[in-house]
């Protein structure tokens, strides 16, 4: 469903990602691991088409189509969604408004139901992300993605700053967005950035990738990868690449 080919990305004239390759099939969920500053957010932003993250080389393919030159909204309308790590507050725009925009006119009535699911009913009349707590921000991102219903969803550290009870809520939302409960005809795909791995206790990931200094250095079963990283730290991954 999504394929990243030989991607090199720069931010403010500094190259952050080097020749990254990644392929995610329909029905799959991948985890992206890596230390702070390794380029995880950069990769997601580049896939979403954020102009600040300039693609120097390589391609992004979605459902077989080259989307490297498409604008953010064109990608969103094709079915790509992103739950931001640190979304901006938008003064004057109500959470209800943005969720309704995501839902589209036909489904606009579902706002309340979705908001209740994420314990955000009280936040609907507040400006998006304005003065939201860390956990509220993450749940508001989930709410927007649920409403948007993308076929390929990316989650940038969905669990950071979220307490244990709410991680379960966030995990459930991710499962719903990715239709994890389905046994057959799984059509959606996901990419979850995490460096604690906690979210993987709630959401099952099929494959993991480790990103270090802008390069994918290791791939495998996400649980195994995490077990290794917990035991030996990310340094092992670098060595692993070398060996």
């Amino acid at each position, binding site marked *: 469903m999504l394929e990243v080919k030989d991607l090199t990305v720069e931010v403010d004239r500094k190259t952050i990602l080097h020749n990254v390759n990644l392929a995610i099939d329909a029905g799959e969920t991948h985890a992206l691991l890596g230390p702070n500053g390794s380029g995880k957010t950069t990769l997601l932003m580049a896939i979403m088409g*954020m102009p600040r993250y300039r693609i120097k080389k390589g391609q992004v393919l979605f459902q077989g189509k080259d989307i490297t030159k498409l604008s*953010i909204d064109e990608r969103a309308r094709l079915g790509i*969604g992103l739950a*931001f790590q640190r979304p901006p507050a938008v*003064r*004057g*725009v109500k959470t209800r408004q*943005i969720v309704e*925009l*995501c839902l589209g006119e036909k489904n606009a009535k579902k706002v309340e139901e979705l908001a209740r699911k994420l314990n955000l009913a009280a936040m609907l009349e507040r400006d998006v992300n304005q003065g939201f707590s860390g956990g509220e921000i993450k749940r508001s991102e989930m709410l927007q993605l649920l409403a948007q219903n993308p076929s390929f969803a990316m989650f940038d550290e969905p669990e950071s700053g979220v307490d244990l009870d709410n991680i379960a809520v966030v995990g459930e939302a991710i499962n719903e967005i990715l239709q994890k409960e389905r046994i057959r005809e799984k059509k959606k795909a996901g990419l979850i950035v995490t460096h604690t791995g906690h979210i993987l206790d709630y959401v099952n990931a099929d494959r993991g990738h480790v990103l270090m200094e802008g390069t994918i250095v290791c791939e495998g079963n996400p649980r195994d990868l995490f077990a290794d990283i917990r035991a030996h730290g990310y340094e092992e991954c670098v060595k692993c690449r070398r060996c």
Partner: protein
Amino acid sequence: MSKVLNKTLAKNKIEWRRKAEAVKSKPATFGPDIDLSKFATPTEKEKVESLESLSKQAKEAALYVGIDADESFRAGSYFQIDHSVIYERVQQAYQGQLEIMSTSEALERYDWVADLWWQAVHVDQDKYTALAELKHTHGYFIRVFKGQKIERPIQACLFLAENNISQNVHNLIVIEDDAEAQIITGCTLHPRVEEGLHVGISEFFLGKNASLMFTMIHNWAENFDVRPRTGAVLEDNATFVSNYILLRPVKSIQMFPAAFLKGKDSRARFNTILYGMKDSYIDVGSKAVLSNKETKAEAIARAVACDQSQIYARGQLIGQVNESRAHLDCRGILFSSEAQIRAIPELFAEKAPLSELSHEAAISPIAEEEVEYLMARGLSKEEAVSTITRGFLDIDIPGLPPILKGYIQRVLDAATKEAL
């Protein structure tokens, strides 16, 4: 009785006229000077039985400034075309709770009206106040009786139907002790009017515990000049909220409405929305004078400048006593490389070390990051920018007819699209 009364009035009038004559050619402190000699005298207009009987064009123009010819959601209405008062009515359900008439009539009817006349605005401020005195052409008198809480808005329309005249109204609004009301004033033109001048004096008097939400919406034309002069005097625990909205081009508008917080615990809030288009010259401020304990004022302004427009957003907070607090918040966005915005906040603590005055002013483009965030949710760039701009200008004002809200959105959408 009326003889004595007329005598006082006549005596006062001599004094007002003398002061007005003295400043007949005194330009205003701000804004371009206007040649007052070029305006003609309009013809008298007939009274109408109901607002529904107005022409379609007049009704539509009025609607866009918040004036609903279908009065079922209004407590009462006043309608003036050029120099003629064509309609004034208090709805059946509100009879005895408030009164509406022209100020010329009120001056004749009540001797105390002359005592309030020119008390919140100085007659000798400049040539425009002088013009309003020397060539006074009515204006509305709205009085809400003691203790009455009027839940539906009262509407007043000042309408220009003839080209090249000056409308010099003087309004007086009295909200008596413990009374509450909302007033929507719409000032606008017949589509055929291109040039002219509107001078509007508005004096507000709010009694103890009185509360007023005043909303003024202006729709003018590219060659039209506007010079309102506004003052509000607040007694103990009174609340004055003043909303001002300008969404259409104008040649020039200059005003600096003031709230005088004389009563303990009184509060004032100004919300100003300025949308500069074409060659508009817009100089609008808000001023609060805090002269008693526990007074609070807030002045919020949002300015968007397009095309070659120039906007001056002024604010002046004057703390004269301790334990007074005021804040000014002014933000602007330029949508054109030929437009200008100047935010001029001024704080003046006058021998009151415990007075707290603050301001924040910012002129900046719409944050790219916010636009991109909304685009990631599927909005096009234009939709994202107009959603954010609308949010930027959104100041929740109750009582506006839905059609006006829709209109405000359409104007903003069209203008932001053009700007991109």
